[in-house]
């Protein structure tokens, strides 16, 4: 059930069998939710963190007029709100964008295993640092990249992140997001996203068909996006 979570951790460091057992012992309440289910509401008091086991979910903030900015996408194996362990409420909402499978970890249990396993504590600290690094990269995209480069960059990032948890097939992966979802990640509109996707497709870089992303020129796509995976910290080393 937490295989993808373990794959994500083990891409960056070793996880001992004892640590694996400690994690397995606290993940509970497996639940399937439909697309567009709000999983966490900003401001509510939280006593557990939610882990995404399957599907795509997001963190977002919105304005009074309903305009929404997705601030990070989450893939299988990610904690959606490990930061709520210390924050106890969120300044953003969390939404399932596709059908998702989730589970929860009680903050009391997190306190116990972080007391007992200092290395696991550091691994989870790494996890929240990684989220912050992804946020910084998205800030660069939103503030400075062109529309086409923003899309290209997001598709590169997802290819790497999904690959780490075994959800790519060659240069393809299932995304299952709408153009509106993508627009809300990229600070664009669905019409604009569609127009730029056509440009990327005609440039022979990447195509999205029926929710499947097919990268036709990985080198070219990275170049178009100015993508390097440095900010995803893919080195496997002691943390």
């Amino acid at each position, binding site marked *: 059930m937490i295989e993808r979570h373990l794959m994500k951790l083990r891409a960056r460091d070793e996880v001992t069998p004892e640590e694996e057992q400690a994690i397995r012992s606290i993940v509970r309440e497996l639940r399937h939710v439909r697309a567009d289910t709000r999983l966490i509401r900003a401001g509510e008091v939280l006593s557990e963190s939610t882990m995404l086991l399957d599907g795509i979910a997001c963190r977002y903030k919105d304005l009074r007029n309903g305009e929404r900015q997705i601030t990070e996408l989450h893939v299988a194996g990610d904690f959606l709100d490990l930061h709520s362990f210390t924050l106890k409420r969120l300044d953003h909402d969390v939404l399932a964008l596709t059908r998702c499978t989730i589970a929860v970890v009680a903050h009391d249990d997190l306190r116990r295993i972080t007391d007992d396993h200092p290395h696991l504590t550091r691994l989870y600290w790494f996890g929240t640092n990684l989220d912050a690094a992804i946020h910084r990269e998205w800030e660069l995209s939103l503030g400075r990249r062109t529309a086409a480069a923003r899309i290209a960059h997001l598709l590169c990032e997802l290819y790497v992140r999904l690959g780490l948890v075994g959800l790519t097939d060659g240069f393809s992966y299932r995304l299952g997001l709408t153009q509106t979802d993508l627009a809300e990640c990229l600070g664009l509109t*669905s*019409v604009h996203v569609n127009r730029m996707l056509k440009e990327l497709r005609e440039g022979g870089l990447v195509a999205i068909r029926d929710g499947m992303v097919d990268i036709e020129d990985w080198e070219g796509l990275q170049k178009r996006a100015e993508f390097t995976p440095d900010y995803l910290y893919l080195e496997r080393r002691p943390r």
Partner: protein
Amino acid sequence: MPHYFFHVRNRFGYVEDEEGSELPDLEAARARAIDGVRSMLSEEARAGEIDLRGRIEVRDPAGALLLTIPFAEAVTVHTGPPADGSKPGIAA
């Protein structure tokens, strides 16, 4: 909710919207189209070249044309002498 498709025609050709969006009514579809035009034009403005000759066609799932939004109708363009009353094209 009804499903609307937003096809773009401009100097780069025809961009077909295969996915479309569910929206409450035609007014919401019009607003979506105008927002889309403005988003594309803002990028063109940053690149230094604005082409207002394109249009968005809003169609229903059967392909019937419901609305056409010319790019030029999505923005108000002010040209002519400077708004501050000084004469154009003369360096101080």
